[in-house]
């Protein structure tokens, strides 16, 4: 996992700094996600997945900030999808496709969800590779 700390300035030159968003290029454990959830929203971790590169940004307060980080790292917007992890959810439904950044009329996705089943499948596959038990 590549970690961007509080004090890393954004490469866009805006002078703004990243908060606690983590770029996961290799792997992250479910326990780490649980820790992020506890530190942030209690039950949930926001993530943006690049289905082309197979990487994701996690732990931001806004999907839009995670999306910005990935775009600045060279991701293409059409490959980026917002999801939420509920690492502690015992019902087994721990990935939620619900983010404002998914509303993308240009790609025919007009809801916060991910309407194309094959895209949802690609997101799940990327997550499976990145998240270790």
């Amino acid at each position, binding site marked *: 996992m590549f970690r961007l700390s509080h004090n890393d300035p954004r490469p866009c030159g805006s002078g703004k700094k990243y*908060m606690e968003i983590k770029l996961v290029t290799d792997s992250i454990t479910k326990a780490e996600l649980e820790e992020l959830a506890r530190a942030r929203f*209690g*039950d*949930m971790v926001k993530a943006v997945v690049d289905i082309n590169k197979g990487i994701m940004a996690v732990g931001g307060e*806004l999907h839009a*900030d995670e999306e910005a980080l990935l775009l600045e790292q060279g991701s293409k917007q059409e490959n980026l999808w917002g999801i939420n992890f509920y690492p502690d*959810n015992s019902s087994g439904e721990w990935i*939620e496709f619900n983010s*404002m950044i998914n509303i993308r009329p240009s790609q025919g996705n007009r809801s916060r969800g991910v309407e194309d089943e094959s895209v949802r499948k690609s997101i799940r596959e990327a997550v499976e590779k990145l998240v270790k038990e």
Partner: protein
Amino acid sequence: MPFQHQELAAGRWQELSLAEQMGNIGSEISRALRWRDNDQKLFIGAFDRALELLDLTISDSRWRGRLKELTRVREAVGDAFCGGSEYRTSFEDLNRYFFNFAIAARAHR
């Protein structure tokens, strides 16, 4: 209770447009709606976040003079949580209301 959205409360929220703010509040409303009937803890978590963000919007000095609708929405959100006994507000209604802002915020994406 400390803010769940600490960075947003510290100023990041004030960098967003009104449509972006309302769209993000709507994301939590839609999550509350999703979990309402099958997970009370997640429902409350999403509802609390929606209210926290709505309060950040109401306290955003840029919207002084436009507060009438925002404070009314807050009342409606509270009403939905209490079962709609006052104004018959439902989470489905709120979800539709906020979703239009999300669409507006992402119109050119």
